[in-house]
């Protein structure tokens, strides 16, 4: 009975030594806070009292952990030498006393920041372009790759020109309609003007109207208290000095 209890305590003692060594290693505690010589003599005593395989294995592990602490002691001494053996308590108390500005001034004496530039060079840009052009097409229909032929470029220019003319025509028509509808009051409710029975037509009118507003042919007056949006046409194009964005949710307001 006595032997079993003694064995249990011996085992716990070895485990405690291992845990202390592990704590020093993981938490970066002072490795000189333990007495290695004393630990080794305790270990020897335990091993002499319990000469079996279980203890030999535990002993090997403990010796390894103690060796790690000795290696840490060596490292600690090197680091301490680098820091002129200044006591950490002294540094802590200095830091507590000093104000932020004095700490920063002390730091600046020892700080030489790295100088580096984060910017694309023309060479890098060229590499990027080469890589981009060498990428395979993502879909089957784009078998022609990324490079457009001259004919395709010509066609796309014609198409864009045609689209621009169509939009300009629609802008003219919508602008005259707005002038006509605001002749009496000088303004009209946004939704009253934009809304049409067909949703496509409503969307189309809102889209064209956005160009008229951006170009300075129409002003928008917003009253957040009444949740009102009024359109006021200008007699001629007014150049925009301060531009701002206005988001209008058509799904919420279109009737």
């Amino acid at each position, binding site marked *: 009975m006595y032997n079993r209890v003694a064995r249990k305590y011996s085992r716990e003692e070895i485990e405690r030594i291992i845990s202390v060594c592990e704590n020093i290693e993981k938490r970066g505690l002072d490795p000189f806070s333990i007495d290695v010589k004393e630990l080794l003599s305790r270990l020897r005593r335990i091993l002499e009292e319990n000469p079996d395989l279980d203890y030999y294995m535990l002993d090997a592990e403990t010796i390894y952990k103690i060796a790690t602490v000795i290696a840490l002691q060596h490292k600690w001494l090197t680091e301490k030498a680098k820091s002129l053996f200044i006591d950490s308590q002294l540094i802590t108390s200095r830091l507590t006393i000093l104000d932020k500005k004095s700490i*920063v001034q002390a730091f600046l004496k020892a700080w030489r920041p790295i100088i580096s530039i984060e910017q694309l060079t023309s060479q890098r840009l060229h590499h990027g372009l080469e890589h981009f052009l060498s990428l395979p097409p993502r879909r089957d229909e784009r078998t022609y790759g990324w490079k457009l032929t001259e004919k395709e470029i010509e066609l796309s220019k014609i198409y864009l020109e045609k689209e621009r003319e169509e939009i300009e025509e629609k802008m003219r028509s919508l602008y005259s309609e707005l002038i006509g509808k605001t002749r009496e009051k000088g303004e009209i409710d946004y939704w009253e003007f934009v809304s049409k029975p067909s949703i496509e037509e409503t969307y189309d009118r809102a889209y064209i109207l956005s160009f008229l507003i951006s170009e300075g042919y129409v002003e928008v007056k917003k009253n957040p208290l009444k949740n009102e949006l009024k359109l006021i046409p200008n007699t001629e194009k007014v150049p925009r000095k301060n531009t701002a964005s206005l988001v209008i949710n058509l799904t919420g307001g279109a009737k």
Partner: protein
Amino acid sequence: MSGEERISRKLMIAATMLFFKSHRSPGVRGWELKNRLGKNYMKILELLNHKLNELGLQIKTVFEDESSQDLDRARFYITLTHPLTMSDLVTSDYRIDEVAALAITLSIIFSRGGKASLRDVLEILETKFPKWKAETYIERAIRRGYINKSEDDVLSIGWRTRVELDQKELLKAIIEAQPQPEKTNKDVQEDTQE
């Protein structure tokens, strides 16, 4: 191409490699410089360093393993040669509070042999900053590479500190620093009038 032109071209290549960040972090490995500049790359770096010194810059070599001093595996950086002033700092993207927190953290880590628990560091930082600010500054220092944090919440020196900081100089400066005298009402009035 004459010898002088060749050297001048190599100097330009070396400067571009060192100034422009081509990896996630700044700095160039010795073997990368060797590939572009040839086996005498250290001579080119010496020349470049001489030219940079005139501008208040220098090439700094950081060895991966101090004992082996292997130049091919070392990293080369460009750093300032002179200390920044408070007014330089104000115009940089560092806040004074952030630098103060960094100085406190690094001083504690240096004075404890290169490692300190996050809890201990925060305890001291919280004497100067609110907790959330102290935690933010620590996170920012980790992101910038000044400190590393292990899974057990132990802080250690990061790669950037090894390049930018002189450990002895920092601790010496902290010991020697004098707290700024608190301004009296009269001083404040004079400052306002100025």
